[in-house]
């Protein structure tokens, strides 16, 4: 197990290094001088030089790459060109919205998908199965940002159950904040719940055909007992992998949903930074998202190997 973990850790590190080089290189080829953009047409050379030093733009690409990476490792993401505040502060403000939103959506998606998938599998071929599968077809076909707009129209504007957008901030109270995140989380969770329900169903159906299920029935368990004690438990293994992948999608997918609800999360930060050509912010937020995604996948791999010993030998 330890060898496996070390091996995965090595490949995680290599992935992160390559990802950081790619992101840095992509941002590097952008034409235009930031300093000239900030100062306008008429400026003094010494002012420009001072600003360049302040923003960490002096030196060659290689030395700037290393100062960017070593900075990030110590929690220093550089200074935003437009906000003139540390990027780390901007990110830590915004991640307080994006991360809870992704977790909230993940919980909702799991809460919807598990019962739906188990129900459909236990009624295979019946009316209940057909209905659930039809709904999941619909769920994957609906763009989540459009679903969000429709929910705003119905639940925020007509029924006034939820705010239509914005975020009060966690200091204004937990429940008010959760209420503001509810519609966004539902919108984000919908397609993921549809996918997860399908995976849950097919994984459980695979298990129902296994010999150990017949054994469970033979030793006197009822259908229901066998399903819950042996079927669902074993079916969870592939489902957990998908949940890990989905968390990554939810985190990145939140970028779009944040636009619908005007939530001050990482998504809005990145779009504002793009339009202001504040590339250090774009660079760092993208790197952070990729890091989180790779980290989640790494954790899932490890959890998976801990549950299923066959995987350790394969890698």
């Amino acid at each position, binding site marked *: 197990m330890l060898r496996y973990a070390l091996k995965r850790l090595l490949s995680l590190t290599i992935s992160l290094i390559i990802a950081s080089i790619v992101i840095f290189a*992509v941002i590097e080829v952008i034409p235009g001088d930031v300093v000239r953009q900030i100062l306008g047409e008429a400026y003094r050379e010494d002012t420009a030089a001072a600003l360049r030093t302040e923003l960490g733009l002096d030196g060659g690409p290689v030395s700037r790459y290393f100062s960017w990476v070593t900075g990030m490792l110590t929690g220093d993401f550089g200074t935003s060109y437009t906000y003139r505040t540390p990027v780390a502060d901007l990110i830590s403000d915004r991640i307080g919205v994006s991360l809870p939103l992704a977790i909230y959506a993940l919980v909702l998606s799991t809460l919807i998908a598990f019962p739906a998938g188990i129900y459909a599998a236990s009624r295979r071929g019946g009316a209940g199965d057909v209905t659930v599968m039809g709904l999941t077809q619909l769920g994957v076909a609906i*763009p989540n940002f459009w679903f969000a707009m429709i929910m705003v129209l119905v639940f925020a*504007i007509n029924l006034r159950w939820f705010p239509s957008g914005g975020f009060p901030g966690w200091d204004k109270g937990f429940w008010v904040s959760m209420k503001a995140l509810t519609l966004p989380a539902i919108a984000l969770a919908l397609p993921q719940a549809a996918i997860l329900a399908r995976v849950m169903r097919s994984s459980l159906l695979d298990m129902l055909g296994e010999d150990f299920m017949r054994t469970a029935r033979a030793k006197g368990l009822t259908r229901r007992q066998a399903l819950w004690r042996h079927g669902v438990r074993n079916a969870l293994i592939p489902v957990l992998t998908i949940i890990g992948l989905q968390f990554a999608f939810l*985190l*990145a997918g939140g970028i779009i949903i944040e636009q619908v609800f005007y939530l001050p999360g990482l998504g809005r930060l990145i779009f504002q930074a793009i339009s202001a050509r504040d*590339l250090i912010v*774009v660079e760092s937020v993208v790197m952070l998202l990729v890091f989180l995604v790779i980290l989640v996948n790494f954790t899932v791999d490890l959890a998976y190997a801990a549950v299923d010993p066959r995987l350790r030998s394969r890698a």
Partner: protein
Amino acid sequence: MKGLWLGIVISVIVIALAVISFVWTPYDIQVLDVPNKLHPPDATNLLGTDHFGRDILSMIMLGARTSIAVALVAVGIGMAIGVPLGLWAAARRGSLLDEVIMRGNDLIFAFPSLVIAILITAVFGPSAVNAIIAIGIFNIPVFARLTRGAALSLWERDFILAARVCGKSAFRISWEHILPNITNLMIVQGTIQFSLGILAEAALSYVGLGAQPPTASWGRMLADAQTLVTLAPHVALVPGLAIVVTVLGLNLMGDGLRDRLDPRVRADRT
């Protein structure tokens, strides 16, 4: 098989609308008719008008063109690069090259497609072409993995062994024997990636990273509709439904084709 036919019918209708828009649309969307804005659907404007008084049906037809073009080219990019990579990795299975190709794929997978799109737009500016590249890049590992997996099991088969005995090179075997045997699989996956591409294009143009005005796009129409949804719900409902119906149709077609063409699923059913 009902799903397959329903899917085919829907897809044909959407494609037909897009093709017809090249020669005819009910109204010219370049002409603004502001006094007639936000008109609900009626006999003159079957799907109503938008905030500039433009006919929504005409815009949906032109938007179908954008969606199909972007998604189709993106699938093309994914196949054109992904399939050869997968074939190559399978031909050299277990080698360093195989490892490098597959790890490279994992790396692309680790970048959420949206983040790739954002990076590309940050560098080159928003446009339909950049949306195509962003979606296309994400399709590469999908096809590479699928091809490698399918090709690996084919390499074990007797008829490939026979081809090797005949002295055919790995390249010729991949081209003459492996590729024709995985075409079905590619068609099915292509349909699914096509529908995902349509959703991705809509999302990108919704946040302003896709096709730019005056090019009509379903995602853009939804972005414009967002502040008008209380005044005139149809401006938000129609483009959204267009996306849902199209994606649903393509998915039904993909699932139906899989049942027909994919031998693994066929074996499962019996």
